[in-house]
């Protein structure tokens, strides 16, 4: 066979692997909204919410409870990732990468700041204030932030076709997002904190993706992801939770009460789906680029709506269905791109 033909075939195979990782990420990410939504009604979080709400009001209570849930999410994710790295035999590489603070781990710590206290906390806020389906679709806009930052900052190429796909996805996001707001406007009761959470998720994940792309180019994805979650655990368990405890919130009391079978099971389900969705997400970036990785990963919005319907029986409104279809169209546009354009992901 002609060498050039073999070369093109090999390149196509790589791009396909990248898209497959991104697709797997979308399924797992969509699944995550099931335990993410369910955990709010489980003890100790339900009781914690009630106790803080009685003294500090509903708004403060929801945010503080969201902090504890997010911290537990980070904890179960890191457990899943440590097992994963152990199986792959990557602890040695992890030690080597952590030591490289200036070129690598600095970026992962920064990514954790935007990914954890901004994006994941924002998502839990959106799930608690508005609902799982809303939280999922509100974050759909993150590829816009991610792609623009990656192209301005380190010159990642975004083709016209990728832009078209992203535009479709955003239109889908707006339809779903707007549908929810309009319904709530009609009832005169808008959960602004939930919508703020949705925006935090979109901006936070977009920034995280672009920052992570910077450190990822010279490190292992499995390893860098674990370092990013070690950083997030430090942020929650060593900084924010003790700080909230000092301010008088019963953080440790309820943290210790979380060891109930059903709560633990839900948290572990959250940890596994979220941990591996991140593994897949990070693996797709070096192969297809931050913008496209995020674009395909965005199908999670659609999956989340489907899973939430299947598990909780929440019938999606027509705006969610139309929006979901637009997201699917956008991701297909990106997926079917002529990969010849992707020979190198960055300009020289």
């Amino acid at each position: 066979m002609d060498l050039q033909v073999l070369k093109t075939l090999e390149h196509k195979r790589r791009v396909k692997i990248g898209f497959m990782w991104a697709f797997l990420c979308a399924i797992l990410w969509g699944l995550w909204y099931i335990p993410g939504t369910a955990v709010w009604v489980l003890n100790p979080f339900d009781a914690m919410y009630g106790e803080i709400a009685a003294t500090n009001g509903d708004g403060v209570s929801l945010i503080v409870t969201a902090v504890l849930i997010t911290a537990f999410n980070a904890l179960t994710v890191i457990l899943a990732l440590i097992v994963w790295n152990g199986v792959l035999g990557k602890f040695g590489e992890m030690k080597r990468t952590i030591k490289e603070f200036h070129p690598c781990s600095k970026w992962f710590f920064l990514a954790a700041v935007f990914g954890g206290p901004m994006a994941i906390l924002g998502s839990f806020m959106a799930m608690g204030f508005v609902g799982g389906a809303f939280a999922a679709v509100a974050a759909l806009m993150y590829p816009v932030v991610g792609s623009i930052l990656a192209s301005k900052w380190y010159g990642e190429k975004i083709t016209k076709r990728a832009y078209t796909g992203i535009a479709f996805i955003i239109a889908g996001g707006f339809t779903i997002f707007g549908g929810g707001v309009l319904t709530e406007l009609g009832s005169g009761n808008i959960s602004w904190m939930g919508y703020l959470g949705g925006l935090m998720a979109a901006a936070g994940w977009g920034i995280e993706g672009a920052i992570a792309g910077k450190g990822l180019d010279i490190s292992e994805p499995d390893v860098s992801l674990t370092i990013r979650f070690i950083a997030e655990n430090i942020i929650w368990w060593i900084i924010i939770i003790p700080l909230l405890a000092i301010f008088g919130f019963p953080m440790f009391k309820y943290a210790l009460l979380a060891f109930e079978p059903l709560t633990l099971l839900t948290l572990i389900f959250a940890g596994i789906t979220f941990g591996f969705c991140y593994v897949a997400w990070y693996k797709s970036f070096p192969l297809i680029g931050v913008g496209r990785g995020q674009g395909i990963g965005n199908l999670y919005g659609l999956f989340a709506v489907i899973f939430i319907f299947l598990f909780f029986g929440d019938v999606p409104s027509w705006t969610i269905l139309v929006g979901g279809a637009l997201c699917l169209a956008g991701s297909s546009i990106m997926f079917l791109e002529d990969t010849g354009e992707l020979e190198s992901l960055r300009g020289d």
Partner: protein
Amino acid sequence: MANLRPIKFRILELCNEDGGKWNYEIVTQIQKEYDQKGNFQRDSINFDIIELASNGLLKDIEVKVDEKGIYKKGFLLHKYSITPVGQARAVNACLLNI
């Protein structure tokens, strides 16, 4: 070996040598230096090279079909050299001998 740096750093160093390096040469050398045995580790190192190339830090300068099965029979063997972007990133990561 003491003072090993992350594998991708070492790959960049190897590809900075005159005339570049073939992927099977890089993989063999890294496996030896980092004491990584087995086919899974071998493919994992090769995937690191692919990622570096996708990111534009390496480029392949020569390709041939692996007819003898040096790496994987019937597949392509690639010779890589570092790109200006890769060199700038390596300097930024304090790879002193680049």
